[in-house]
């Protein structure tokens, strides 16, 4: 019996037999898992003889081929061999087989993410609203009802089950799990195991969640469940097993990377909050927004770097426009001379700050500078040599993204701060921001399908020019430029400034550069710090300051680094809060010092809970290759001794104790108080010392902008 429904496309995946499966939720709340017919065509070009052989090879295996003309981004229309298979899995198999046998041929459209294929084929995007007809087993018709660029997409309400653990299971096996579903709370004891299994199964079938949010689900819980209950399937789709991708340490991008295990579900999502890079910032709403615009599944967007999303978006643009998508990027750099290379290969503009304490500083930011330049200057690998060409593939991909983010930002500004939609809008806005942040890097990125290093360089060259123009305009209007960093500009004027003073500068910059600029804010005061190694040398992007509304902004201090223990970070935070109360931070240094002394005393009396003394360090090499083990290597050895598989690239947590280091939380009396005191003092001095010592004399930067004076003559006391 045929039914027609309105609903949302939640996910798409392949069954082991190669059948594409769609997970949909309809308007009535019914969950559907339906098969779909999704034929796939990929294309092959190359030398005639090879191509003819490949044709024969495929014909002998009854694969259908056809000669077609398709558009190559760089070469225009060109003849290709189109290979069509009934489903993505067999297309994948034929492609790999062909490539093995004919490595000299070039392959296109061969390895696209399933979501991209589906969107290209049906126009229905992930998380999109759609109309579908089904016989209960299979999709018979599927059509889109909205666009990924809609500002207010509708979404079904999701059933979310949260699973929390009492502690890091890698250090000590947990005794229980805490489960939360709406208003329900359950504590499931892991012993006896049989009862635990039965309870978990019962809860799962009772709530039938769409999303399982866990702590350590990837690296512990799901692998554990698989081991103790091999027949227990957490998927909604009974035809699928939980996909556990093994942990890997691999050498890539010139460094050692570690990726923990990952557990993916089918017909529902699993997200491990501890193993999802951006999830803390963007949450489920943000991960869904990323899926909506990139066509990568929510379980992917929650875990992966947004770079993969940018690549997928470019693929969809190309697919929709019939442009061939190369399976491996082969665009190599054009030759140039050493002197040309030196002149071209420079990064963004970094202007050394004038070290010191300043009052009334305005920070002006170019909004999404790099992507805006890419759209405005039509930077795309195929338009590099033709600046007047119609918008290239990259600008076409980025334009709707820039528009949507801007619209969300504007919406946020107009809403009442108590509006309950704000959190969701913010999450979506910052998810899109991440895509825009990485899109520039992906222009030259080695695996980007449509990248070219030269376009990358052109963007940085334009960005430097923009900042120089902004600097000139600021100086024309009587401002002193204190610092420039890639896409932001810090200006100052003797005698103070307010928003109204800066408005004409913003207008002038926007008029000259045609790129949007915003006033990040006016700092009541701002301190630019010198290099930690050399107090004479200014370093970019190391500062702290407080805006007029009391908000702090900090760059390059210990509290921003991952390896700083929470205690040292909180002391820095407290110091900054004390300073933030003053009109001039130097007035409150003495108060801050009192605080530091008090905290050090609490430390020496053992009053600091060891939980906040935990240190986290990323292991740079394999643990056995350390000659003189530093603390991280010692922690690695301790973990290895208790059977934890420690690998390079992992982040290790430990404490400094009187015996060295400990990977278990020590008793307060065992903590290495002296070591933590040194860490705290160093963190405090990082902020306080520059406030006490004037900048180094001969090159005191503030002298730079003293207007050439006619010194008022000092009155001479009478009687002399």
């Amino acid at each position: 019996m045929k039914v027609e429904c309105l609903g949302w496309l939640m996910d798409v995946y392949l069954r082991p037999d190669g059948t594409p499966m769609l997970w949909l939720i309809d308007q009535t709340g019914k969950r559907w898992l339906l098969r779909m017919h999704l034929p796939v065509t990929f294309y092959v070009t190359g030398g005639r003889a090879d191509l003819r052989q490949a044709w024969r090879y495929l014909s002998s295996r009854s694969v259908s081929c056809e000669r077609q003309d398709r558009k190559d981004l760089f070469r225009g229309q060109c003849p290709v061999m189109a290979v069509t298979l009934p489903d993505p899995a067999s297309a994948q198999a034929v492609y790999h087989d062909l490539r093995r046998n004919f490595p000299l041929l070039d392959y296109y459209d061969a390895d696209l993410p399933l979501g991209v294929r589906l969107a290209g084929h049906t126009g229905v995007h992930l998380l999109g609203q759609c109309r579908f007809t089904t016989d209960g087993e299979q999709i018979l018709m599927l059509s889109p009802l909205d666009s990924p660029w809609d500002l207010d997409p509708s979404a079904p309400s999701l059933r979310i089950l949260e699973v929390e653990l009492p502690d890091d299971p890698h250090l000590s096996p947990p005794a229980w799990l805490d489960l939360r579903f709406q208003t329900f709370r359950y504590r499931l004891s892991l012993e006896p195991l049989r009862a635990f299994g039965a309870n978990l199964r019962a809860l799962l079938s009772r709530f039938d969640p769409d999303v399982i949010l866990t702590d350590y689900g990837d690296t512990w819980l799901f692998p554990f469940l698989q081991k103790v209950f091999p027949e227990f399937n957490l998927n909604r789709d009974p035809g699928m097993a939980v996909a556990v991708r093994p942990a890997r340490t691999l050498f890539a991008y010139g460094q050692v990377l570690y990726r923990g295990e990952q557990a993916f579900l089918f017909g529902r999502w699993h997200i491990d909050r501890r193993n999802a890079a951006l999830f803390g910032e963007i949450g489920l709403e943000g991960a869904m927004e990323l899926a909506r615009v990139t066509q990568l599944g929510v379980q992917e967007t929650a875990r992966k770097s947004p770079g993969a999303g940018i690549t997928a978006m470019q693929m969809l643009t190309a697919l929709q426009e019939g442009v061939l998508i190369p399976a491996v990027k082969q665009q190599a750099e054009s030759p140039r001379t050493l002197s040309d290379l030196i002149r071209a290969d420079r990064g963004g503009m970094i202007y050394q700050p004038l070290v010191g304490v300043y009052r009334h500083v305005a920070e002006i930011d170019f909004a999404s500078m790099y992507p805006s330049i890419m759209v405005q200057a039509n930077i795309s690998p195929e338009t590099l040599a033709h600046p007047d060409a119609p918008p290239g593939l990259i600008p076409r991909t980025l334009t709707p993204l820039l528009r949507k983010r801007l619209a969300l930002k504007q919406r946020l500004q107009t809403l009442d701060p108590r509006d309950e939609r704000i959190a969701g809008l913010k999450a979506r806005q910052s998810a899109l921001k991440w895509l825009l942040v990485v899109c520039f890097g992906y222009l030259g990125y080695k695996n980007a399908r449509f990248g070219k290093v030269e376009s990358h360089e052109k963007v940085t060259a334009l960005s430097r020019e923009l900042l120089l123009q902004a600097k000139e305009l600021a100086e024309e209007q009587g401002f002193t430029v204190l610092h420039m960093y890639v896409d932001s500009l810090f200006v100052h004027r003797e005698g103070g400034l307010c928003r109204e003073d800066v408005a004409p500068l913003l207008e002038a910059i926007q008029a000259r550069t045609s790129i949007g600029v915003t006033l990040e804010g006016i700092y009541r005061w701002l301190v630019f710090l010198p290099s930690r190694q050399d107090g004479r040398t200014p370093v970019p992007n190391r500062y702290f300051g407080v805006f007029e509304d009391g908000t702090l902004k900090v760059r390059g201090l210990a509290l921003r680094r991952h390896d700083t223990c929470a205690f040292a970070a909180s002391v820095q935070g407290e110091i900054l809060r004390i300073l933030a109360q003053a009109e001039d931070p130097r007035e409150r240094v003495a108060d801050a010092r009192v605080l530091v002394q008090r905290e050090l005393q609490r430390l020496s009396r053992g009053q600091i809970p060891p939980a906040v003394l935990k240190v986290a360090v990323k292991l740079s090499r394999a643990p056995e290759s350390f000659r003189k083990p530093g603390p991280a290597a010692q922690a690695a050895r301790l973990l290895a001794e208790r059977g934890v598989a420690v690998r390079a690239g992992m982040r290790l947590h430990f404490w400094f104790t009187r015996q060295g280091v400990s990977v278990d939380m020590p008793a307060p009396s065992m903590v290495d108080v002296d070591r933590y005191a040194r860490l705290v003092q160093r963190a405090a001095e990082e902020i306080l010392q520059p406030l006490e010592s004037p900048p180094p004399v001969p090159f005191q930067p503030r002298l730079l902008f003293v207007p050439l004076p006619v010194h008022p003559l000092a009155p001479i006391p009478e009687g002399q």
Partner: protein
Amino acid sequence: MNDIMLSQSFPAGSMAVICATHAAADHISPLIVRLALGGTVQVLDGGNRLQAYPLTRLIRRHTPAVEEVSQRIYVRRAFTAYQMLALLEESSPSSVPCILLDLLASFYDETLPLKEAQSLLKRCLERSDSLRVLAPVIVTLTPPPTPRRYSLFEVVCQRADALWLEPQPSAPPVQFSLF
């Protein structure tokens, strides 16, 4: 190693392989300059190893015409093994000496399957064979960061007419000492 290498002559038809940490970046710069002082030289950089400013400083030691000599050093960079192959395939045999800097860097990247790396390398080496007919090809390498990729390194070394290997500091896997 510097002096030995500089005193060598590299005849057309030969392939020299130099293996050292940082892909012999320190040793190869004087050689590039020596070649550039005499004519054009082509550098295909597979691992971002070209030392741009040290090269100009070295040139300045020989001649004030830094700009002129820098214009004779042609550089192309590859960031993936595919691009390295594309670079080699786009270069045609000429009398210009060719230096392949850190040839294997992107082949060591484990996001590239080993089989694929092997097949791409085979094609790269076939291509470099045809490039060296009229001028020498000089290859620099880094020792493989993981034993899983050792076979690639071996293949290139076996192909060399002259091979320089920097003595590796003998660092047996060390026992952890107690604090």
